[in-house]
């Protein structure tokens, strides 16, 4: 009906945060026609996610729109909507795929149930919702949509969750789809599949796409125009890209320069890199995983899989020496995060053993396990979700020092600030609440928090996925330095071939 009007038009959009006193967005202008795609890039903390939330009327408390802000969806002026008006728009006419998919899914409901409920809200029959869900999941490259639909969000890998969210967002064939870093948790092949699915959505349903990413290559490949957001203002994107190492969108080489056979590690570590760990310590591995089986229960798998046929991880064995970096690679859904969680005792193992420095992790519990956690730390994939949202950055980091008796009170805060500085976190934000930080900022808080207790082994689950090239370089250099100076062993889970190649002489493919 409104064929001449653009799908989304924004004029003079400004946002301020009361607490920080900074103008997060300033006089944003753009318009997006039916079926068009606009890419927004920009460094971490530039306000990319805030822009998306502002377009959906979902700004956090304390945030305010500047005078003269105008947002139009077709002929509808969004600034005039009340809560009821917004709920008729969100999900149906504008859909959003959040950057941290775990925060956007209801943790206690199976995927199918969530979709059906969203469909009901918008007047779809359950059958129609299910049909569209299956279609969407197939488009997103799932071979067995039924199985995925029967899982709980925590039973999906990060990449699977992102694709499930995209399928959900497409449920109502929205006029505008806002996707915030929709491919960060995906391997290059799946990244292409998702890109193709987004292109189909534009072509088949005329959906206009606002694609937010720091991956300029992806934006250039998938969007009609690319703009850059810097310090809250829009500008033309740089023509010559900043170092976007390892983010080529197509056909990334999968030949990592390391032995594929995990059992040959001793020879490899000895030859590739001098470790700073003491030579005799190298004799006993820091981490030994023996014949590990881990699985989930799904109802659609008829006869309960007592034989472990449906296990995500099957008969996995490897070892990791002190100060060694082991890369863990594999396609989305291969069980990379599951492996991390099983080692951390967040998931029960079905069979096999995880031995950390001579201690069988399944054999201890309570206080001994808690004390051992000091030496075994984790940077989660959805780093933001793993932090206490209501605390300040420095309090979150100080907590790790306090609970292990390393420092208390003011001393802990000072050390926390030093750790935050070490990971390149802006000093002005150390007292800001976690939930006012950008994803990239939270990522660095999570790394600082994990480093606080002084671990021997750090499990990093996609530590660079949500960072812009500059910050990514910073984090990689930091990990490298920690390995060399502290003798920190790393289990590095990543889709980023360049990061793996740089840090991990040995790779475990899943």
């Amino acid at each position, binding site marked *: 009906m409104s064929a001449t009007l653009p799908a989304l038009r924004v004029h003079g959009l400004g946002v301020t945060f009361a607490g920080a006193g900074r103008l997060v967005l300033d006089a944003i202008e753009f318009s997006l026609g039916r079926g068009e795609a606009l890419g927004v890039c920009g460094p971490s903390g530039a306000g990319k996610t805030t822009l998306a939330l502002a377009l959906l009327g979902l700004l956090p408390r304390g945030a305010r729109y500047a005078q003269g802000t105008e947002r139009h969806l077709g002929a509808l002026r969004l600034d005039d909507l009340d809560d009821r008006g917004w709920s008729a728009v969100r999900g149906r006419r504008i859909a959003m795929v959040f950057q941290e998919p775990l*925060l956007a899914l209801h943790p206690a409901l199976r995927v199918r149930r969530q979709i059906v*409920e969203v469909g009901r809200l918008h007047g779809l029959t359950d059958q129609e919702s299910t049909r569209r869900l299956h279609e969407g999941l197939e488009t997103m490259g799932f071979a067995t949509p039924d199985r995925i639909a029967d899982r709980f969000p925590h039973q999906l890998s990060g990449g699977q969750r992102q694709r499930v969210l995209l399928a*959900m967002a497409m449920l109502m064939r929205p006029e505008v789809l806002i996707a915030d870093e929709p491919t960060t948790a995906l391997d290059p092949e799946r990244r292409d599949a998702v890109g193709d699915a987004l292109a189909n959505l534009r072509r088949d349903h005329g959906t206009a796409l606002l694609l937010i990413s720091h991956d300029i290559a992806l934006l250039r490949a998938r969007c009609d125009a690319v703009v850059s957001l810097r310090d809250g203002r829009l500008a033309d994107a740089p023509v010559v890209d900043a170092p976007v190492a390892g983010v080529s969108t197509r056909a990334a080489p999968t030949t990592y320069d390391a032995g594929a056979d995990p059992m040959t590690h001793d020879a490899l570590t000895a030859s590739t890199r001098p470790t700073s760990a003491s030579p005799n310590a190298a004799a006993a591995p820091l981490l030994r995983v023996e014949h590990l089986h881990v699985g989930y229960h799904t109802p659609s798998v008829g006869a309960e899989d007592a034989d472990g046929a449906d296990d995500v991880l099957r008969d996995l064995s490897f070892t990791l020496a002190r100060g060694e970096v082991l890369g863990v690679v594999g396609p989305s859904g291969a069980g990379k995060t599951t492996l991390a969680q099983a080692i951390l005792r*967040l998931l029960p193992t079905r069979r096999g053993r995880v031995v950390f420095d001579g201690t069988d992790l399944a054999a201890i519990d309570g206080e001994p396990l808690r004390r051992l956690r000091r030496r075994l730390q984790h940077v989660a994939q959805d780093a933001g979700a*793993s932090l206490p949202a209501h605390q300040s950055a420095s309090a979150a980091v100080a907590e790790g020092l306090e609970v292990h008796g390393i420092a208390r009170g003011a001393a802990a805060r000072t050390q926390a600030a030093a750790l935050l500085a070490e990971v390149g976190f802006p000093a002005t934000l150390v007292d800001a609440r976690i939930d006012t930080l950008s994803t990239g900022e939270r990522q660095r808080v999570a790394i600082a928090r994990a480093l606080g207790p002084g671990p021997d082994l750090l499990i990093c689950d996609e530590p660079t996925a949500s960072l812009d090239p500059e910050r990514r370089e910073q984090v990689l250099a930091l990990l490298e330095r920690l390995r060399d100076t502290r003798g920190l062993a790393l289990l590095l889970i990543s889709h980023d071939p360049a990061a793996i190649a740089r840090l991990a002489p040995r790779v475990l493919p899943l």
Partner: protein
Amino acid sequence: MTRPQRHRVDATTLLTVGGIVALTLAGPALAPYAPTEALDPQRLAWQPPSAQFLLGTDGFSRDVLSRFLVGARHTLGVALLAAGVALVLGTAVGLGAALAGRWRESFLMRCTDALLAMPRLLVLLLVVTGTGALRLDALALVLGATGWMTTARLVRQETRRLLATDALRGAIVLGVPPARLVTHHLLPALAPTLAVAATGAFASAVPLESGLSYLGLGVPTPLPSWGNIIAEAEGDLLRRWWVVVFPTAAIVGTVLLANRVAERLTHGDAP
């Protein structure tokens, strides 16, 4: 698709709650007569509402408005204290069960279910007839001790959900000890649930106190409470309607209001 939203209680509800609190606090100062004083048993008993006695008088010629205003403190105070007791007990049991896990959790929750299955009024009657008239604080304690089970179930369920979230798992992996996990991570996240549970416990304690007082087993006479004001009309409720209508309306209104607050606090938690 939904980010956590703040749930607000609307202005009307807040104003009403504020009004009731103010009236209750100012009750003795506002009361035109002493609430326990028999003014003139010969001539002023069972006076219908008039300019002199806005809500009439009871059989002892005591002013019902004065008794109503002062009685609010006893009725609401006891219910508030009872809700507090229920909240503390219920949170302790619910958190304990969820954190203990396995057979201890099953044991605690089965006990809770068993207690929940007992008719509360019957238990209260048994206790109160066994001990005789209770002091106000003891009455609140007994009401709280029989009303924590729903809170325990809510808290256990929500705690289990929270323990599966990334934020709590992050704290566990960091090595946060159980006590700090409760104080710094679980309790702040449980706050909305606890608010709902407390309001519910309050809403159920108000009519129970009134019922016990009506039976002469609650707030001890001659101290007024909404329940024992109504009790005075016994024998001829219809003709002495003014003794019945106003306290009853207050009881029903308070319960409805508490439920509304609870509803506003929960609203939006659904997916």
